[in-house]
């Protein structure tokens, strides 16, 4: 039988190889009857490319290996790959699992060499700004070991999408104009800029992070082989760093054990620990500066009420009205709360009202902003602020309105029904009841009336509990 000759394009001709494999498999040509040639501008299979054979299905791991190995410089790569394909299609479907097979092992080593070259290209390309260019433009000269330019370029697109850049190599060039990636002919080193204004700083950085006490050039060369050095601006520093390392260490050791300078700036040290916000205004300024955790809110809505109120009510988060007005409990639920407070004999202006979460979170539906419940993580994000806030208000009784407030006050998610009534929130005396918005959501009038009555009863107890004994300052809590 005569040898069948396949001619492929110079470089990584994945497409040509794929087509060739289809044909060869179709015609049942065993590897020993096929030779692969490489040419700069092949005359596509001597004209026989016209009729394309139908695709063949290969295991995924094999396709991946082909994709890598075609980039390798070894002229035998196509022949080896075809041997592998042939064996997989002729009874050894699981051949790639046998990493110890000599052919698989050899191809795996080739694939690994290509992956490594790719990785090193991603790492070691150094862009230089093209001076005098009107827009910010960059170019780099790089010498890859294998035919990896096209495999490597998408990484740079993902990373430098907003920049205009060119990578020049001896096997071709890649250019990104912030819109399209195009490939061009091989280039020369002189085509790239010879310097860059940040290279001195970069070299300075590189020199400074080296620790002379741990000099280990073998380990360095294993990861950054010498062949890459000439295109890396920092590499010129290497010989000097190695040469002076032992000297520098000796000098440090000689200098060792100096007496510590007596530097105890008492005032500064004391001031350092005095960093906590001292007033609600200071705390609120910090919250305002941090901005909303979930974007959208108009403003942070802070707590409201006298600084040392007896009762602090903690709700969930500001709603639509609160967000616009910048005050807590002014929407429908807030109005209901105010009414209930009055009926229970509590003067709203004497209490402190706040929310677990300080920003409105919503979903936009048409013109309406629909409240959406904060997640556990979001509630906890605001929790340190709430704790500080209560520390500054120092109420006698802290009331959790609803499950979110309860979560914020205890750090744990617990259902309201099980904990309704008196509670302890850390050091604070507490009380758990429903959120007024719950009353608004109830479907029929009957349950609504009942729930409202229960809520009122809770508020009356809260009122009683918060009445401290004017002499001892103690709550009449033990009396129950």
């Amino acid at each position, binding site marked *: 039988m005569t040898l069948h000759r396949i001619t492929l394009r110079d470089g990584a001709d994945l497409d040509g190889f794929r087509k060739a494999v289809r044909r060869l498999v179709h015609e049942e040509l065993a590897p020993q009857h096929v030779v692969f040639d490489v040419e700069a501008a092949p005359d596509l299979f001597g004209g026989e490319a016209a009729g394309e054979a139908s695709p063949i299905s290969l295991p995924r791991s094999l396709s991946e290996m082909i994709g890598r190995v075609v980039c390798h410089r070894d002229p035998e790569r196509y022949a080896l790959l075809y041997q592998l394909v042939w064996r997989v299609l002729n009874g050894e479907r699981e051949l790639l699992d046998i990493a110890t097979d000599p052919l698989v092992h050899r191809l795996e080593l080739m694939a690994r060499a290509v992956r490594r070259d790719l990785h090193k290209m991603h790492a070691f390309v150094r862009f230089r700004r093209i001076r005098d260019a009107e827009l910010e433009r960059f170019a780099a000269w790089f010498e890859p070991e294998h035919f990896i330019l096209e495999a490597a370029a998408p990484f740079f697109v993902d990373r430098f999408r907003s920049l205009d850049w060119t990578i020049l190599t001896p096997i071709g060039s890649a250019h990104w104009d912030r819109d399209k990636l195009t490939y061009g002919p091989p280039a020369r080193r002189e085509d790239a800029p010879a310097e860059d204004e940040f290279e001195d700083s970069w070299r300075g950085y590189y020199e400074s992070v080296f620790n002379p006490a741990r000099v280990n050039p073998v380990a360095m060369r294993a990861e950054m082989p010498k062949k890459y050095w000439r295109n890396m601006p920092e590499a010129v520093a290497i010989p000097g760093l190695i040469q002076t390392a032992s000297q520098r260490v000796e000098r*440090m050791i000689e200098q060792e054990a100096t007496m510590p*300078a007596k530097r105890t700036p008492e005032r500064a040290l004391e001031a350092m620990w005095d960093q906590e916000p001292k007033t609600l205004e200071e705390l609120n300024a910090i919250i305002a500066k941090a901005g909303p955790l979930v974007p959208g809110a108009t403003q942070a809505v802070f707590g409201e009420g006298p600084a040392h109120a007896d009762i602090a009510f903690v709700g969930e988060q500001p709603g639509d009205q609160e967000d616009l007005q910048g005050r807590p409990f002014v929407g429908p639920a807030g109005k209901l709360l105010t009414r209930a407070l009055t009926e229970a004999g509590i003067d709203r202006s004497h209490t402190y009202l706040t929310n677990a979460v300080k920003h409105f979170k919503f979903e936009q539906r048409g013109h309406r902003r629909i409240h959406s419940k904060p997640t*556990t993580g979001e509630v906890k994000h605001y929790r340190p602020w709430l704790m500080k806030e209560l520390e500054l208000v120092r109420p006698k009784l802290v009331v959790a309105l609803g499950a979110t407030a309860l979560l914020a006050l205890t750090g744990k998610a617990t259902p309201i029904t099980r904990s309704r009534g008196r509670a302890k929130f850390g050091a604070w005396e507490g009380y758990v009841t429903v959120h007024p918005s719950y009353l608004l959501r109830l479907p029929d009038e009957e349950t609504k009336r009942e729930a409202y009555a229960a809520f009122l009863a809770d508020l009356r107890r809260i009122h009683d509990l918060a009445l401290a004994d004017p002499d001892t300052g103690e709550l009449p809590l033990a009396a129950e």
Partner: protein
Amino acid sequence: MKELPVDEKLAKKLRILADAAKYDASCASSGAPKRKADPDGLGSTTGAGICHAYTPDGRCVSLLKILLTNYCLFDCAYCVNRRSSNVKRAKFSVDEVVTLTIEFYKRNYIEGLFLSSGIIRSPDYTMEQMLLVVKKLRRDHGFRGYVHLKSIPEASPWLIEEAGLWADRLSINLELPTEASLGRLAPEKDGASIEGAMAQMHERILESKQERRHFSPAGQSTQMIVGADDTTDADVLRTSAKLYGHYDMRRVYYSAFSPIPDSSSVLPLKPPPLMRENRLYQADWLLRYYGFDVDEIASGGEKGMLDLEVDPKLAWALKNRHLFPVDVNVAEREMLLRVPGLGARAVDKIVVARKHTTLRLEDVARLTSGLKRARPFLITADHHPQGRLDRLDLRETLVEKPEQLSLFA
């Protein structure tokens, strides 16, 4: 070469503040979710991280690792930046750090920023300045590269909450493995607040994963200095096991205390051998990926210290010879992982390949570079160590001649 217009002052600061940051071993840029730049933005993350250069100490340069300032009010004895040290000081402005990060990034020098700082004015003030840097990068420059923030445990808890929103990884250095050493060598630090901050970060990282929100998605890491006090390797590893278990640390870094310029007199005079650090890293891997526990690892050495001459797996195997030899063709994966010289990847390949074929010694040789160490402990289709395991000089035949090893291989 022609002089180019460089901001000399900035370059000088960079040298000081990079030098001051280099004692932090962590440089990893891994673990972030894959991201790509927006059409107007800059930066991506690949998941695995990239080392953009290596310095002659064999360490990887991945991030621009700098301090915002090396002025510090604290006085930690092991640190070059402690207030009583006589080093040169400098402070970056927020904009200077942003410029350096962006310009270095555009030239493909780095994967992103690792920002740390000495404590000036107050922990909160310092942390706020660091946050400003990250916010500017992310908001004003659409920067999607990697950001690692070294948080200050003494800062208010809400600042740690905020840090996690912007950074890919947070870390707090434990620095010393025991509370007692911390008290002696770092008087202003407090073990409880360090662990408190770690717990807070851990809790938030878990929640945000469930809620698919961004909070330090690449997790948290920490560092311990080895050799500045008399803690044994076993106790160091016990602390690590606790950190991995309680706070789900991605990495614990070990940094052999090394001579620093203008060193303090309360520190030991001699640095520990670098090999100790190397052995701790190997032991750490055994802990995380090979199913060993601390006591087993410690049993390979003497008096709580690891064997410096052989790696910890080999040390353990030499003292547990009765469990060997192991047959590559039939042994459980767990047992294969305990064979010296066989890495986890080689073991996985063995387990797959042996379903289809019977392995010989030359097959194993294709999968590992540690065959010399593995040989006496292995049975293959054509090999049995016979009496070699019982030989008294087995250890001697396996000790590698001292050569410098790569630390992060």
